[in-house]
Every structure is written in C-alpha cells, then in structure tokens.
C-alpha cells in the first residue's frame, strides 16, 4: 500500500533517517583568545602609503597612469589595499560640492572559507556605500566643486567581516592623506563583537562566528565626531553604550598608529 502512495515524479527521501553528528561547539575563548590578545586589544597594524602611486624620491616608481594616492593596510591576517584617484572632473558636473565614490571588492581568494565570485555581489555594494558614508564627512568636499574623488578598495585577505570593513576605512583614510586631499580629519575605525555579554575587540572570523552581536564605529578623533556606526544583533542599551565608548577609545588608539605611519611616510 505504501509503495503505491509514493510519488514517482519526485525524488523521494530515504525511508530511514538518522540524526547527523554535530561537531562539538568549541569555545574560542575557552583559554583566552587564540592569538593571546586581551579582550580590548586590536590586532597589530602595519601600514604603507603609496604602493600604487608615484612617490617623491622613489627611483623605482612606475607608470604615469598611477593613482593619486594609495595605501596598503594590514591588521593581523586582514590585508587591504586602496587606490584613490582625483580630485578629477566629475561625471555629474552641475554640483557645488565634490563627490566621493567608493568601490569595495573582495579578491576571489580573500576569504579562506569561501571562494568569492568576480562579479560584484550585493554585500560588496552595500559595504561600498557604508564606506562612502563613513569617509565622506571627513573630506572637505566644498573645496572641490564639480570634482569627484574615487577610492577603489580591494580586500586581499579577510578575517572577520566587520573587522575587514573597519580596516578598509582606515586604509582609505591613509590613501586619501597620501593623495593630498583636503580633509577635516582622518577617520579611524574599529569593530567589536559581543560574546556572552562581553565585548571583544577586533574579532577574527572564528570569533565573529560565535558572537551574538557586532558593532563598527568610524570616528574622527581630533574633531571628536562619530561618522558611522553600525550594529548587528540584539543588545541592551547599556551594552550598546559601553560598546560605543570602548570603540571610540580603540579608534583613538588606531588613529595614533595611523598618524605615526603617515608622518613617517612624509619625513622619508
């Protein structure tokens, strides 16, 4: 009787089912963080300006079509490069203010857990927009009427989505400074993840996977202004408050590192 009731036009599941064997949920913080950082510590930062643009006093400099400014930024495993073009004649020409456009891309090999497509995905478009919002308030766009400034960001290696976005913001800031674009302040950004009511700074991908909430803040330290804030997941207002405070403190520290790197690149 049962065989008669079976629908032959569909692929039917097996008669007998067994429960899959789940991997034990490993606690990434069981014995401190994997890379023995403290909870409010950002991964070590390395920064270099001008890998894609012509530099003063560099005899090995390359082609004439080079970017106006560029930067390479490393934060732990995260590697991001950014090229800035402009200010140059914009496409929309009847604007009093300059415009800032950003193009954010993951390299196909950048995420070790997943091959990325060459086609620009929806998340890349979204992040591009986020970066524009985070950086544009820092640029003196009123000084560049009718002009546009373009930033092209490529993630070479990613480790933690929110941390990568924060790294991209820092990288663009450095590249804009390298291009000599007038700004009110450099933007420094940093991210956090919430893990069992504990905020953990600059989460790697493994840590982000187990965190219930994430927070990204972009901040201009000398102007004391937050330019962008993004939170995913549910928290209590107190927790958010605490995260904002901690993030701002960390941004100030990241900013100090950025400034020192930029000053070193000028005095070379």
């Amino acid at each position: 009787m049962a065989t008669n009731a079976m629908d032959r036009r569909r692929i039917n599941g097996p008669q007998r089912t067994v429960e899959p064997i789940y991997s034990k949920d490993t606690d990434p913080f069981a014995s401190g963080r994997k890379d023995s950082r403290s909870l409010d510590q950002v991964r070590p930062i390395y920064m270099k300006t001008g890998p894609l643009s012509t530099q003063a006093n560099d005899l090995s400099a390359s082609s004439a079509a080079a970017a106006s400014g560029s930067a390479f930024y490393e934060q732990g495993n995260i590697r991001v490069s950014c090229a800035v073009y402009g200010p140059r004649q914009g496409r929309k020409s009847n604007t009093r203010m300059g415009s800032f456009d950003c193009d954010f891309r993951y390299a196909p090999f950048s995420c070790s857990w997943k091959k990325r497509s060459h086609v620009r995905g929806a998340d890349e478009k979204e992040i591009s927009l986020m970066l524009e919002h985070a950086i544009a308030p820092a640029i003196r766009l009123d000084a560049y009427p009718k002009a546009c400034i373009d930033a092209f960001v490529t993630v070479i290696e990613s480790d933690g989505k929110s941390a990568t976005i924060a790294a991209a913001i820092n990288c663009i800031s450095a590249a804009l400074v390298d291009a000599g674009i007038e700004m009110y302040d450099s933007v420094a950004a940093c991210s956090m993840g919430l893990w069992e009511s504990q905020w953990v700074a600059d989460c790697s991908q493994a840590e982000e996977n187990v965190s219930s909430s994430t927070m990204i803040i972009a901040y201009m330290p000398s102007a004391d202004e937050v330019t962008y804030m993004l939170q995913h997941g549910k928290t209590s207002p107190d927790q958010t408050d605490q995260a904002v405070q901690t993030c701002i403190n960390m941004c100030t520290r990241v900013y100090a590192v950025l400034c020192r790197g930029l000053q070193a690149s000028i005095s070379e």
Partner: protein
Amino acid sequence: MDIDTETQQQNLTTQIVTPGSAITSDPAFMRGHGTFGEHGTIYSSVAGVVERINKLVSVRSLKQRYSGEIGDIVVGRITEVASKRWRVDVNSRQDAMLLLSSINLPGGIQRRKSESDELQMRSFFAEGDLVFAEVQSYFADGALSLHTRSIQYGKLRNGTFVSVFPQLVPRSRSHFHTLPCGVDVVLGVNGYIWVSKHVPAAKVEANAEHIYSNKNEEISETERESIARVANCIQLLNRLYVKITDTTIIFAYEASLGHAVKDLLTMDIATDLAHAVNSRLAQQG
C-alpha cells in the same frame, strides 16, 4: 602641538602634521593653503610640512593637484568637444575650458567665429589631442579658461608626453625651451610636459595654414633617440623630486649620455644618474 610663543616659532617650520592636527590657536596667525579654522584654532587639512610666512600659516603637502593662475602656460589634453568649447584635462581638480572664440584660425585669419567653424570644431582639436595653451581667466566655479591666441600655442605634435608632479615645474619667464641637443621642450606648469623634435619658429610661422595638422613631420632615428632620452631624463628628475627646468634637464641629459636610452630608468643606472645630477645641482648652489 600649540605654537603660541615667539620662542616656539622655530618649530613651526619643521613641524610635520596630518589632517586634523591643531597647528596653533594664536589669533594673530592667518590661515593659508592646506589649513582650516574652527573655534579660533587653525587645523591642518592635508599631511605635510607647516610653513609660515610672517603671519600666514600654510601646510605644504608633497603631492598637490595643480591649481591654475592666470597667465600660466599649460599643456592639456582635449577630453570632450562641447558646444563652442573644448573641455581640456589639465591635471587639475576639474577640466579646463578652451572656448572656440579663444583659438587662432588656420593661417591666422582674424574674423569672428561663424557657425561653420562651430560645425568643424573637430578639425581644429579632436578628443585626445594635446594643446599648448595659456590660462586666460577663471569661470565662476573655479574652472580655468584657456586661450591659444598666439602662434607658439596650439596643437602639439612631433614628440612625446611626460607627466610629472606639478609642483616640480616652477613658473618662469619661458616655458618653451630648445635644448642644445636639438629637442624642444614645453614645460607646462600643470606637470604635463611635451618633448618634441625641434622645429624652427620661422618654419612654424611659414606653415601657419597647418597649425591644426595631425601629421608628424619626418623624424629621423637620431632625433627619436634624443627625444626619448630627454623624456626619460625628465621622468628621472620627477622621481628624484628635483625642480624641472631647462638647466636640470640639460644636467640629467649630459649625465645620461654614457648609457643607452632604454636603461636610463632601471634602478641601478637611475641611482647613479641621481647622484651625478644631485652633485651637479649642489655645485650650482
């Protein structure tokens, strides 16, 4: 970082700043380029070196975009043919304009530009052509207006193009040089440089009908080589971050004579030449 007292003013000249760093809160100072003021404090808006001229504080960055001044001699590339005007890329924040009314007609005929001239604008300058022009005025939005109303200005041909940092080309009496090696150089203050075969001025004037010609003249092998050598020397000076004038180009050219043209920009030869040019410049004082 505040520079308030006279005794600290020495620091002001060697100070390196990044965007957003406070330079001074002394109301006696005026803010110049690369700075902005807020709540009575002067902040830097670019990364660079703080400079002070009397009471004027400005920040000079290593890389600047060219910002035009009236009377500047520039080299530009036509990007668009619009109605009664050409848009010209002059390495600036926005494209410059070259109005149809501010060019010379072939043969130097003096008359108003008619509708038929408007229709054949592409026969004067088409997209991609290089022009040698002078800045005539500004538009209200800060865009530059160029003119080519002189026999020496106009379309560029018979040569090669080099792009350098605009701040390396100083404004001077003459921007058109004929080097002793038989090469003409047009040093645009916007950082665009044209290196070409030497054509005597008398011959240019005699051929006034052909100022918008797109055809190169006959360029011999040796002329090609010296054009390439001068172009590479200018590129070298650019990488050295040395002021680019006719004298420095000649220094670099003479120092480079022992090497093949194609090797000039390889790392070790470039380093050798850099030393030679630098010591020559130091001797000059």
